[in-house]
């Protein structure tokens, strides 16, 4: 190690900070490593305690019969795969799975399209554009339960302001039962989630757009690409890293949305807005079958994990291809 140092320093005069130490001062391998690990330790401990332990405990709990009695007696007999069987053969499971898929796809498509449109719109600066961009952040800043409560009020069938407005404008003649009809409840919940997710998308996509140099647009214009073609051939490819982050985070986050649905419809009416997350919550905290709730929670984790692996691999492959 020490003999190769002078040659490497001669070879890389422009990077003095990365060269190995001079032979006069031998390194003590343990000491600086100890300090490095010392700095890592609090973060690692925190991760292990607040992320690692719950995941492990959840995994173990899904194989046990864990009910409210367990809290007092401490007994949680091992039941093998029984919880998984119960959960997967639950009549509501398929419906919840379908709702989760519809909810996620609908929310992400809506959020992304509207977010992208707004980000493109704000590329030009006009009077009050800075102010408007900050106001756009409001849905993201409000606590989810507060938003759910207000939207529940807005979407009220008879006296909610949305129906009243639509009736006054003349778009509908009878009030739409947004949250009380099985057909429209999921649509209403997706609408509210889109509203909630727009700021996140706008902020990230806008900063991604800022990073694209304007010379490229000018160069493309010379070649005759304007408007839609410049968006398709210049903006989108350069925005790909940001888009993949936004979509990945969006999907992972939307799959597990709980408080919005609980606040708006509680999973009803008649399980029309029941998702895997809400069902898992219901099993654990309403029916006190923690083992089954944990099993369903693990199913959700696996779904999210599979999605992220597939997506990241597809992303890696396409960036490798250039």
């Amino acid at each position: 190690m020490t003999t190769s140092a002078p040659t490497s320093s001669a070879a890389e005069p422009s990077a003095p900070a990365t060269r190995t130490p001079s032979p006069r001062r031998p390194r003590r391998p343990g000491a600086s490593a100890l300090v490095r690990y010392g700095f890592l330790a609090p973060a690692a401990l925190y991760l292990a305690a607040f992320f690692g332990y719950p995941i492990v405990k959840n995994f173990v709990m899904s194989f046990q019969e864990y009910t409210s009695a367990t809290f007092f007696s401490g007994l949680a007999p091992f039941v093998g795969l029984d919880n998984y069987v119960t959960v997967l053969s639950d009549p509501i499971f398929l419906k919840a799975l379908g709702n989760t898929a519809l909810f996620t796809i609908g929310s992400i498509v809506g959020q992304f399209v509207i977010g992208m449109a707004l980000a493109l719109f704000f590329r030009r600066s006009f009077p009050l554009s800075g102010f408007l961009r900050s106001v756009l952040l409001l849905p993201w800043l409000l606590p989810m339960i507060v938003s759910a409560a207000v939207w529940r009020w807005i979407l009220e069938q008879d006296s909610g302001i949305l129906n009243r407005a639509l009736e006054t404008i003349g778009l509908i003649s009878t009030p739409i039962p947004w949250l009380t009809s099985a057909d429209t409840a999921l649509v209403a919940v997706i609408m509210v989630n889109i509203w909630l997710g727009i700021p996140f998308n706008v902020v990230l996509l806008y900063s991604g757009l800022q990073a694209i140099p304007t010379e490229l647009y000018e160069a493309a214009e010379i070649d005759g690409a304007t408007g839609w073609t410049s968006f398709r051939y210049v903006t989108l490819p350069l925005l790909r890293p940001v888009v993949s982050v936004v979509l990945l985070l969006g999907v992972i986050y939307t799959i597990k949305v709980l408080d919005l649905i609980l606040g708006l419809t509680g999973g009803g009416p008649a399980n029309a807005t029941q998702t895997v997350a809400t069902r898992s919550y219901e099993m654990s905290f309403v029916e006190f079958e923690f083992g089954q709730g944990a099993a369903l929670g693990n199913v959700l984790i696996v779904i999210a994990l599979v999605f992220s692996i597939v997506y990241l691999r597809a992303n890696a492959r396409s960036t490798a291809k250039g």
Partner: protein
Amino acid sequence: MSDQLRTSADHSPVPGFRPRRRSVGAAALALPGLLGLAACGGSGDAASGDPGTVRVVDYYNTPADDTVIQDTLEAVGTEVGVSISREKVPGDQLIQKVLQMSSSKTLPDLLMLDNPDLQEIAKSGALAPLEDLGIDTSGFTQEILDAGTYEGKVYGLAPTVNTIALFCNTALLKEAGVEAPTTWDELKETAAALTKDDTYGIAFSAIATYEGTWQFLPFMWSNGGDETDLATEQVAGAGQLWADLVAEGSASKAVVNWGQGDVIDQFKAGKAAMAVNGPWNISGLQSDAPDLEWEVVTIPVPTEGADSVAPLGGEVWTIPQTGDTEKQKKVAELLQKFVSPENQLAMGAARSTIPASTEAAATFGKEHPELATFVEQVSTARARTAKLGPEWPTTAKAIYTANQQILVDGAAPEQAFADAADSLG
């Protein structure tokens, strides 16, 4: 940061710290860890408490409830010679709090539970049977004791109870020229007559939670239905009543999403001429809508002369197994005095609920005529967990799920309740 890199003779930076800085760094890292451990160690002692303090946990957060419970507990505490340390939790978090306390062995000395939850907690072995601690339960009706009973032993006593009845907007009734209904046919006619413009004839809660089941029970029980067998025509008949009221437009379709608080809000705003609700909302009704003239009648029955059977609500007070038998006996003494008839009258008056012991209830009915109907309804009320015990919550869920299917999906009541009975196995 700049002098962390020590330069060698040729002024090129050398990674690594000087020993002095390294030990300072290590010490700086260790300090938060030690502080954390110190903090963890200190908090454990508070749970064991001192023998002269009784720890109480309940969910009475509204000012009216909070003040009277606090005052009564303190007065009784002074009589018995203990001081009270009370912790209030939000209503929907009580059970989670109880489970946390169970697992950390920090259950309080006196615990309040909503009566349908008592079975679950008693089953886990966390509560002490009250008669073993020398509590006298005479003076309470069998139904009220049933609400606090698990496997034949009384674990909880309720000083006051409540139930639901039919609130009627007298001004709107007079305007439409109808009387308060007593039978189901009258209910349907009256509700239809009262529905005009944006006012619905009746409002009730059919939400997909235990509240929805609670509101359904008087109709189910009055029709002869029983919670042990849902696939009967009596239960389906009650479901049909609700379906008819919504189908005819006398009740809003939004009832499937309304809790009891939403129902009384509709009544206060004049959007519902009749509302199925309980006495706990009366003080809110009086303060928010002082000009509203209302009366309360018992819930209509299917045929003339049948009994109107409503569900028994109210919270029970229990004594958890803390392992300290001396303290438990002291708390039992406290509880016995807490549920004395005089205290029941005071709490009932402040909280608009009905005293549990029979003579106190009769006195109460005379002193508070506006609650007289509730006194009457309570005298025939039934505990939800009397027959099913800890299995009640699954049946309750099956009932509200069936009602949701009937009112939202338009399922036939017979089919919906047959499915519900199947799901219970």
